């Protein structure tokens, strides 16, 4: 039993990383209606910008805020420059552009900052939280920040005009345009916000996994899995999904004999797929009903 509790706690602390990323994934899914494969790399690039600022002796929180702003603008810029010209291309062509962006950003980051591992400071320190050796103060802080972001997002989408407009633009572009919403800019705004969220996720994750151009690959996959498990239409579900993926992964590694530790990732994915077969819109996702 003690082993079980320990593994669940360890799962929650890695799950916090996935939850952060899952939140960013859901954010962009809300805005553009598909998954962005380059999102992890964009978060990684933002984190490098923060690292560069801190190296230049900018105080942590100032660097944090600057990075979020730069990422926000960068996200909008990518949407305007790369995606606007091909907005009418088939969906699969967009997916290929994501793959291309992934390649460009990864390669560029490796070129600018090279592939050596760098440590990234934590604003919360790394002391154990409540005397438990499994969750550090940083991971506690990460969970807290994720939850605060979730609340802010909820407030933004539920109670502000812009939030409402963004939801409308994603749900029904044609009607939204008719009532005066600038749909195309709403998409750009969604990109900006998703990139900003991604940069926060990156800066929170970097102290745990260390900073290097390939740090986000597996995290993004787990983030996707968490987001899909929780339901891509539900930010709260995505965060829960992220935690769940962390816990499932840890438990599978501990309790399934022989293959458990070798097949941690596939087993977690298979569990998710099984859940999806029974709940095709994810655990908390809204079921989309189309009128015929």
């Amino acid at each position: 039993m003690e082993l079980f509790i320990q593994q669940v706690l360890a799962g929650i602390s890695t799950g916090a990383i996935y939850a952060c990323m899952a939140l960013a994934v859901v954010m962009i899914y809300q805005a553009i209606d598909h998954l962005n494969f380059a999102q992890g790399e964009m978060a990684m690039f933002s984190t490098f910008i923060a690292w560069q600022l801190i190296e230049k002796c900018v105080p942590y929180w100032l660097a944090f805020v600057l990075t979020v702003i730069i990422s926000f603008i960068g996200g909008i810029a990518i949407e305007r420059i790369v995606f606007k010209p091909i907005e009418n291309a088939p969906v699969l062509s967009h997916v290929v552009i994501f793959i291309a962006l992934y390649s460009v950003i990864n390669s560029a980051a490796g070129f600018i900052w090279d592939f050596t591992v760098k440590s990234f400071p934590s604003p919360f320190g790394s002391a154990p939280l409540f005397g438990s050796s499994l969750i550090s103060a940083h991971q506690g802080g990460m969970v807290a920040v994720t939850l605060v972001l979730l609340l802010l997002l909820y407030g933004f989408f539920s109670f502000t005009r812009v939030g409402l407009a963004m939801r409308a633009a994603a749900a029904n572009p044609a009607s939204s345009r008719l009532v005066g919403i600038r749909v195309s800019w709403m998409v750009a705004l969604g990109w900006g916000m998703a990139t900003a969220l991604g940069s926060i996720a990156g800066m929170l994750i970097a102290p745990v996994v260390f900073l290097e151009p390939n740090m986000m690959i597996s995290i993004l996959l787990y983030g996707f899995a968490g987001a899909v498990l929780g339901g891509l239409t539900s930010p709260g579900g995505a965060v829960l999904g992220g935690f769940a993926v962390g816990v499932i992964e840890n438990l599978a590694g501990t309790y399934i004999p022989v293959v458990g530790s070798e097949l941690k990732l596939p087993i977690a994915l298979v569990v998710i797929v099984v859940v999806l077969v029974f709940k095709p819109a994810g655990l908390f996702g809204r079921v989309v009903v189309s009128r015929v």
Partner: protein
Amino acid sequence: MSAHEETVVHHDIGESPEGAERLIAKPAAPEAKAGLQLRHFVFVALLVLAFVLPAFTKNFVVFQLTQTMVYAIAIVGLNLLTGFNGQFSLGHSAFYAVGAYTAAILMEQAGLSYVWTLPVAGIICFILGFLFGLPALRLEGVYLALATFALAAATPQILKLSPLEHWTGGVQGIVITKPDAPFGLPLNQDQWLYYFTLIVGLILYLAARNLVTSRTGRALMAIRDNPIAARSMGVNTSLYKASAFGLSAFYTGVAGALGAIIVQFVAPDSFTLTLSIGFLVGLVVGGVGWLPGALFGGAFLLFVPNIAENVSKGLSGAVYGLLLIAIIYVMPSGLAGFLQLIVSKVRGK
């Protein structure tokens, strides 16, 4: 060469499921209107070129061309699923791996001739694909992408498992002996495998072409364009979708077996998600829903990373990405849409 002129599914029944229409570059039949003569002439010319090419090129180039055809076969498989049936897959590296390992194990441990490994690999993959297609029936779009992704992520890990090491060779993989040309043909091994792949590819291509222009093909496309309408017309959507998965896996499995034979080596890490993504990229640059585009896609998959590497060692990933973006800018619907544009420009429409 394509069947879209025969697609008779209209959208007047109501809103189709979101994205279904935008998934496919609609009329992807570049030279469909250019008349039968031109189309057949191009086909025959390409075929003649393909047959005489090895006589004038170096062995390494012959090998590369063979590899291109192998990728093209896999992309045709993916196209049958994604382009004609509207199901998304990131898991085709798994079927490619199963095909490759089937060939390797049958040749090296059961002593079977390489020719017979192809149908066996294809059939095993068909069964696996069909079975995987059944639970996948309930999933669409990104959810299906995740499920197939799980397949791709699991495959290298499963191949490395210690209980299977006796057959798979674990991390080391299996080395395969290269077959010689039969009947005393005056060809070296690379040249023979080139012709062998060409013939297999040609048979598979013609079969795929006939399939998509048949009643079955129309049913597959009807499911892609409007599943509800298709079901109302009496198409057994579950059976067709699962069969499409199986068939697609069949093609990819045969490609995997051929790939293993020409590379003479299989190892778990050759069959990662990167390969699946490569197939997807190849499919899109060639043209979704246009079978001959697979050849262009296969060439892209093989040569463009090398070109990028030559342009800049340190920034090869960035060059590759930029080339890819440039291609999508110039041809948003792949080569298919591009050729169609040219044909319509030339004919002054």
